[in-house]
């Protein structure tokens, strides 16, 4: 395995290298280095300042893209205001991975099993992207990252009085989700996101029709019958907890 590693010091520089080399952004590398999912050029983000903090704003919690799962887990702000995201972070991998793995990388994987994405979709998060200039996009509208865009931060609304996340894996830690689900509720506004039941995390705003939108497949992690049965039970549990 060999590649060229670039270590830009600013956002501008990173985007420039990206445009010139067509390389891949590297956060902690717990996904791309493990799965060899990269091109010849890797652009490390770790020396770019300002991407590693969690801050409270008026309507949002702003989470830098290099914030690790460990930081999320340790943050009382996240735990209080965004319990679904906190639970997702807490249930991701094990301590070693959580010390390194970033929220930006989790979104960047675009995997249906990205645990934080399920929580963030339910919480109606937005992402701030940078490709020379900054723009903002709702996560639910973001189906792939365009060639050059870098995620700089994630903005998670504080308006949901209730949110919760559930994960079923094959063991209690270091486990890919067989299925995960998050529900966020703000009065009559309900958002339910389900992971691993299709090619992407699936969002649904009506609890009574969640199951119709899921299309699991038989794979090494479980049968359609099993995944559907668990989805039903998780949905029951979450809606009950949400008082629905």
């Amino acid at each position, binding site marked *: 395995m060999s590649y060229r590693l670039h270590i830009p010091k600013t956002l501008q520089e990173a985007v420039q290298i990206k445009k010139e080399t067509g390389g891949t952004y590297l956060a902690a590398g717990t996904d791309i280095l493990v799965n060899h999912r990269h091109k010849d050029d890797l652009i490390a983000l770790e020396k770019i300042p300002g991407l590693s903090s969690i801050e409270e704003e008026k309507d949002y919690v702003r989470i830098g893209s290099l914030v690790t799962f460990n930081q999320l887990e340790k943050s009382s702000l996240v735990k209080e205001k965004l319990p679904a995201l906190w639970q997702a972070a807490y249930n991701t991998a*094990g301590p070693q991975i959580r010390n390194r793995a970033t929220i930006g990388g989790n979104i960047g994987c675009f995997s249906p099993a990205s645990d934080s994405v399920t929580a963030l979709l339910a919480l109606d998060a937005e992402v701030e992207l940078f490709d020379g200039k900054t723009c903002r996009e709702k996560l639910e509208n973001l189906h792939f990252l365009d060639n050059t865009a870098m995620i700089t931060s994630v903005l998670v609304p504080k308006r949901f009085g209730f949110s919760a996340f559930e994960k079923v894996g094959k063991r209690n830690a270091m486990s890919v989700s067989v299925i995960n689900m998050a529900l966020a509720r703000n009065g009559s506004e309900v958002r339910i996101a389900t992971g691993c039941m299709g090619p992407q995390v699936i969002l649904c705003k009506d609890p009574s029709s969640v199951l119709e939108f899921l299309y699991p497949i038989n794979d090494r992690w479980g*049968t359609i019958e099993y995944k559907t049965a668990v989805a039903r039970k998780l949905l029951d*549990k979450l809606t009950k907890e949400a008082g629905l």
Partner: protein
Amino acid sequence: MKEKNCVGVSAARLDGPDKVTGRAVYTADIHMEGTLEVSLVRSPVAHAMLKGIRAPHLPDGSFLFTASDIADNHIPSIFSEQPVLASDHIRYQGEALAIVAAPTKELADKLVSKVELDLDVLQTVDGIEDALKEDSPHLFENGNICSTFHSEKGDTEKAFTECSLIVEGSFETPVQIHGFMEPEAAFCCIDDKGRLSIVSSTQNAYSDLYTAATATGRDHETITSRAATVGGGFGGKDGNTAQVYPAVVTHLTGKRSRFIYSREENIRWGMKRHRSLTHAKIGFSKDGHILAADCSMLLDTGAYAMLGPSVLRLGIEHFTGAYHIPNVKLDGKLLYTNHAPASAMRGFGAPQAAFAFENLLNRAAAKLGLDQLEIRKINAVHKGQKGPMGGENEHEIGLEEALDKFAQSPFYMEMKNNPVPRYGYGLAVGMMSSGLGKHVPDTCHVIIDRTEEGFTVRTSLVDIGQGSQTALAQIAAQALGTDVCRIDMQMGQTDGNQDSGSTAASRSTFVCGNAIIQAAQKIKEGQDHAEGVCAFPEASGEAIHTYFAFMVQGAKVKINPESGAVDPVWMHSTTETGCVINPTLLNGQIFGGIAMSLGMTLSEQIRYRNGITLENSLANYILPSSMDVPRLTNDFVEKEEPTGPFGAKGMAELPTVAVAPAVTSAVSSLMGGLEINRLPIDRMEILKAGRKA
């Protein structure tokens, strides 16, 4: 009784400091100038005839060897039918066809990918079910039955007619891997005496020497072999894994070489625990005495026998467990399939058998209105009684004492009262032999030398991580009347030693401990250099093994109502393994064995599809994590075994035997008697049963 100070205490592990500081040298830590890296050309398909191998252009300093380069193309084992490199008939996906050696691993792999194979693909025999079909292709001329085993004691047919209860069931257990941290690895060079020197991750340095001698045509005297620090074996390094390939390369090129399995190679093509299909029928009198048992076992040994025939024999011998039963019929078949070879794994057939027998025993207890402990007490085997094959139990058996002690435990009190309805409780008993068994050479040689600092104790036996060097140093110190810190244990090499066999069959403490005591006696009589030899005592009558250890295993579980996952909460056990040399080491073996077996019970399995495993990494072969291991407690009864070293018996495999049936019985008690007959436990079965309940 002798006054004890070095044994019976939890001496700190001698290998501990080196391991926790990273000073310990494992095989893959050996870096030397000019070492060739070895990769194998492996078969892409599970069953085929090999018509030809076309090598790519080999740059200077790179090599490719095929079967025609091997002096005598077989790996010595029970049947020795496995070639070092397949030359015509390919019998499993991943089978080695050629060896490539190159200055870097990248280059070796690249050259491997450029080798062209000419194959006539055959239909895959994809498991036991296929192997038994009339019209399945044959792996060997004589068909797909590798070995059989049959034994009959008393008249089972007649006895069943006299039973007031008969329980019966069919069971299945999965292929499991050993899951050792250190993958298979070997390093070879020519030493300053011109000998082929093998350093490897092995359970048996001598077997590596013999295998290399066969493959290279060298005399035994021109080969030397030793184990580096070994990061776990559990049976999976008992026999050839990586060793023979660099041995061939170094022999033919004169250059250093090494071969380290990737984790994928380890998972797909390392040795395995045999998948089993078992059936058992057990008949009881009204008061719960077992009158008759008829048990059968089918094992998938994969493409080659390796130690499979012995696994079948031991599994069958242990089938009826720790009970005295007058009429017993036992049948077993070991089958060849197009799967990677299964061989030794901790428990050696006994866990597969116990899963069937112990579950049925608990089902019978429920029908008879007996407690799970009671039914075992009624039937517990005692010294002097005849075993399932008719041979007399000649040595100490403390099962009844272990059952009594378990009955006094807080665990059992809780199980009896079951205060919280969302917990389920179950128990099972495991019995495990030690020693290699009748007609298998089982001798250990030890040499003790007096030195300025104290004593060196040498043997070719290997400490594979289980801690035997500490226990043996304690025995030596006790026997010599000195302190453990004055004993220098030198283990695991052929040089200066005689063949003491494999670190296997829970034999090291017993057989090596006795040899040490013998040599120590001579030292105490004034010699500065003494040898000790112990042959493991063989069973005198109709039996394979004659020493057994016992374990009462309790399981407390809860069930996740959303996922159907079984969550073990507490495992408590009482063990009977003679006198205990080192309580902490004993518990280490017990707790590790329980964790290993929870894996097989709940999540671990290798599944084949057309001869190819679905599992290929530790992300999808689900070993338990530390978060999956429940509270573990163990106590023991010490019944002195007069022929053992300071009263000890062997126990390393014991904790793997009874975990699965204890857990499934606990689940069953929570789920209205749900009968779980297949491992790992299928969560869908639990959810379905929950829906009904």
